[in-house]
């Protein structure tokens, strides 16, 4: 997994480094893809965090060379045994939203992504505390909270990277900054873990996902790349500015 992470990460770095040598073009043809993949970090993390089982799938479709619509589904099961209580939650979460690729079309070539996504999430889950052990001035006792079903809502901001490993297969990772809208269980029974979100006792949660997906190009789109000539002309008027070759581009222009 570390090797693949490195491949993904360093391919991006190489992409950034190499982009300075890319010759500016007037138009590029970019393939738009349909993608379907799955999260491989969830099953692997079970070896580290035995309380959580999480399986996720993610689909996406390129609407333009920069905008991608995506939707995902995740099953999570959480079981925790603490000194004063046992807690269980499980359920499905659905996320849908869009992401924006900051890489210019001539750099991304339909293969690379470095961008930011915004998604809405719906979590349909059940929770219960089969054992609550308490101690107070009356003595010790055991109680429980029966199974109840709820619908939680959240939004997530997802900076991430994606690269084509080889034609038809991409790997990437996303960070998640999730903002809780509602856990759907009231203030008293906020779930210790809300499937798809995380600890619902906090208004913000973070997570990461490493995924592999299979992509199919469904359309090719010609994208006009604005030449740097206008900028260069302006720069030429500035005597103190550094001189750049008109044939080179930073590759990140106005997007990054």
């Amino acid at each position, binding site marked *: 997994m570390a090797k693949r992470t490195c491949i993904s990460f*360093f391919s991006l770095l190489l992409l950034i480094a190499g982009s300075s040598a890319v010759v500016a073009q007037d138009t590029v043809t970019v393939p738009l893809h349909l993608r379907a993949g799955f999260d491989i970090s969830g099953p692997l993390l079970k070896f580290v965090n035995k309380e959580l089982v999480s399986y996720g799938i993610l689909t996406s479709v390129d609407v333009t060379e920069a905008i991608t619509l995506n939707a995902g589904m995740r099953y999570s099961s959480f079981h925790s045994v603490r000194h004063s209580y046992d807690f269980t939650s499980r359920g499905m979460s659905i996320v849908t939203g869009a992401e924006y690729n900051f890489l210019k079309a001539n750099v991304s070539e339909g293969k690379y992504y470095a961008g930011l996504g915004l998604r809405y999430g719906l979590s349909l889950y059940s929770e219960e505390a089969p054992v609550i052990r308490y101690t107070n001035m009356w003595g010790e006792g055991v109680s429980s909270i029966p199974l109840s079903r709820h619908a939680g809502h959240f939004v997530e901001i997802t900076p991430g990277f994606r690269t084509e490993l080889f034609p038809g297969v991409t790997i990437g990772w996303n960070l998640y900054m999730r903002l809780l809208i509602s856990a759907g269980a009231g203030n008293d029974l906020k779930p*210790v873990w809300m499937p798809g979100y995380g600890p619902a*006792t906090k208004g913000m949660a973070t997570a990461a996902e490493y995924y592999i997906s299979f992509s199919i190009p469904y359309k090719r789109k010609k994208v006009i790349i604005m030449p740097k000539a206008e900028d260069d002309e302006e720069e030429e008027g500035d005597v103190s500015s550094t001189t750049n070759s008109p044939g080179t581009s930073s590759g990140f222009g106005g997007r990054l």
Partner: protein
Amino acid sequence: MKCVPQISAYVIASVMAFLINSCSVQPCYEDTDPMMNTVLLASGTGESAKADSLRVRGVSPTDTIEFVDARSVTSCSLPLDPASDLSLFYITVNGIHDTAVIYYTRLPHLVSPECGYTFLSNITGVTTTHNIIDTLIIENSKVDLNGEKNLHLFF
């Protein structure tokens, strides 16, 4: 590219440290015992009154537990039995005994993942004998962790 293994190791170590830290059990620093706060008032005037002595015991099916035994007090805080929908108290004010029964509903409440659950209560009724207690009035029925006054005891 020689730095690849080092950076990989660093990234993996950071992720592992984050995960291990996030999975470790954290201590509980929060108050988890909701208390029913009772203010002593002078019957007739309604002004704050000081009892020369106050003793309160809770009666459970198996035991009698002393909650308060103090002198020169104007208020007291009592826990409600989380195992029952009523709590029976023997209240002794200035050496004179009374019995009070508090009826309530219980609501489980997650304090925090670290502290676990507690039981909040909503007082639905009170009954008392009247040897020294004149009246016992519900001021605020919600017994929670906010520490607000719940009962007014006139004597």
